[in-house]
């Protein structure tokens, strides 16, 4: 309940954000306003720019045009140094985990704590154990990232992302590569962080079960723009064929790839 009282206030806002890489236009005029303490899920087909979108929110990628505001402060023109205090409010789960190979799992989670807090080794040790417990892993502190399975790596990365108790968490495909039970642990964690700590979450996912479970709001990104915005129920009952195809995972309905050329009618079926 905690976050609900200020749910109306905006925490992240993007206005007419454009981004291209060479000839490839990835974001084409994104307008977005995210409420504090809510969980927003971003879906969209592979390669459509979901990761690029959330990297803009934490300043890892700068927009070519447009504005980004965090808690009312305009952040897109800021220098790397000025981003530091803002980034400390964020947790970012990278799509591939991005664990430091040269550190053990425990040291990975301890890294931001050692860098930015004056906590003692014992306190850090406790926090690391607690965060690992939250993601359903234990006793992997001394393992190297290369010794962990893909799903374990992802969960260690998630533990690292929440190590500093951030108030905004960006999850890039938190449940990909996890078995259904583990996925649900992560879903529960996202919900728990929202309910107990009023965390604002942005979740990029392909996993519709997870999306429906955690989302207060779902956005669908397609060819650099949002083509759908609504609650989980809106998405379940949508008529838009592009959205339906994605939600139900039905390739026959999927005309997204061919949308540049109208579907031909005369095909024999």
């Amino acid at each position, binding site marked *: 309940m905690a976050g609900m009282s200020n749910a109306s206030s905006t925490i992240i806002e993007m206005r007419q954000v454009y981004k291209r890489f060479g000839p490839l236009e990835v974001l084409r005029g994104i307008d977005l306003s995210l409420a504090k303490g809510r969980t927003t899920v971003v879906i969209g087909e592979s390669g459509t720019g979901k990761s690029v979108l959330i990297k803009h929110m934490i300043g890892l990628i700068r927009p070519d045009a447009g504005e980004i505001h965090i808690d009312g402060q305009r952040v897109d023109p800021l220098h*790397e140094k000025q981003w530091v*205090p803002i*980034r400390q409010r964020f947790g*970012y789960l*990278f799509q591939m985990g*991005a664990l430091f190979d040269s550190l053990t799992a425990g040291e990975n989670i301890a890294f931001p704590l*050692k*860098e930015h807090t004056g906590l003692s080794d014992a306190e850090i040790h406790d926090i690391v154990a607690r965060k690992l417990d939250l993601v359903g892993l234990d006793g992997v502190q001394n393992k190297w990232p290369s010794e962990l399975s893909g799903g374990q790596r992802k969960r260690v990365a998630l533990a690292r992302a929440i190590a500093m108790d951030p108030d905004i968490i960006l999850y890039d495909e938190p449940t990909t590569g996890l078995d259904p039970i583990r996925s649900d642990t992560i879903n529960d964690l996202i919900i728990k962080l929202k309910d107990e700590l009023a965390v604002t979450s942005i979740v990029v996912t392909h996993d519709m079960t997870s999306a429906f479970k955690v989302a207060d709001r779902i956005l669908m990104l397609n060819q650099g723009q949002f083509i759908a915005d609504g609650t989980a129920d809106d998405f379940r009952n949508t008529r838009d064929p592009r959205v339906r195809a994605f939600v139900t995972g039905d390739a026959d309905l999927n005309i997204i790839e061919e949308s540049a050329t109208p579907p031909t009618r005369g095909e024999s079926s």
Partner: protein
Amino acid sequence: MAAEITMNGPIARLGRLTLERLDAMGDISVFALRTFSHCLRATVHKRDLERLIPQFHSIGTLSVPVIMVTGLFVGMVLAIQAIEQFRAAGLENRMGVIVSLSVVRELGPVLAGIMLAGRVGGALTAELGTMRVTEQIDALRSMGSDPIRVLVVPRFLACLLLTPVLTLYCNLVGVLGGWLISVPIFNVSNWAYWTYTELAVETWDIASGLFKSVFFGATIGMISCYKGFNCGQGAQGVGKACTESFVAGFVVILILDFFIALLLKGAYEAIWGFKMIF
């Protein structure tokens, strides 16, 4: 149409290439300046100093064997090449002079530098390039840490500080290599080898070699970290960055060597005048 053709002409291409190169020069200058400014600060913070230790190990300690082998064979091959000529001229007592001066002034620093450009530079570029490709560098940024401070500064400082030390090892073993060929094998007098060496090799010679090696170390550290940080996508990008890092390191070391030698020669002659070896 006409404009398009001119834009692809050789002069336009040259212009574009020049601009790209200048751009890259600007990039690496900014990178270097940021590194230097952090280096100064690194000496005060305990955590920054702690990060130096593992780099000292991997860049310094682990390079010792390869540097020793390089030095040994350089000294030996110099002696083998020189001994017949020197003997014919009746100068075999001066074998130590030619070996030691060549090694200490020139071959030790340059070959140690080149060995390190391969061993250390390649490894650093591969490590940082992999970190970039797997988004570990972005992960550092996302946690509010400066990747230059965390990753580049300790590696750069280790290269800068340890290349002269490794060069010293290389020099020492090089002189021993020359001795090994001259004295036990070609029966040059042991006494003569060391006496003439001592007479000919001045502190200046050793110091000028080490002076160069500081720059070689800085070159290796800076280029390899820069190439790693700016590496392209995938395993291919990492491989390409490693090659570029080694080649650029190698070429810059040779060019720097020439200009520093010129500078030092000018300085020496201004202070002491022309030096006769024999």
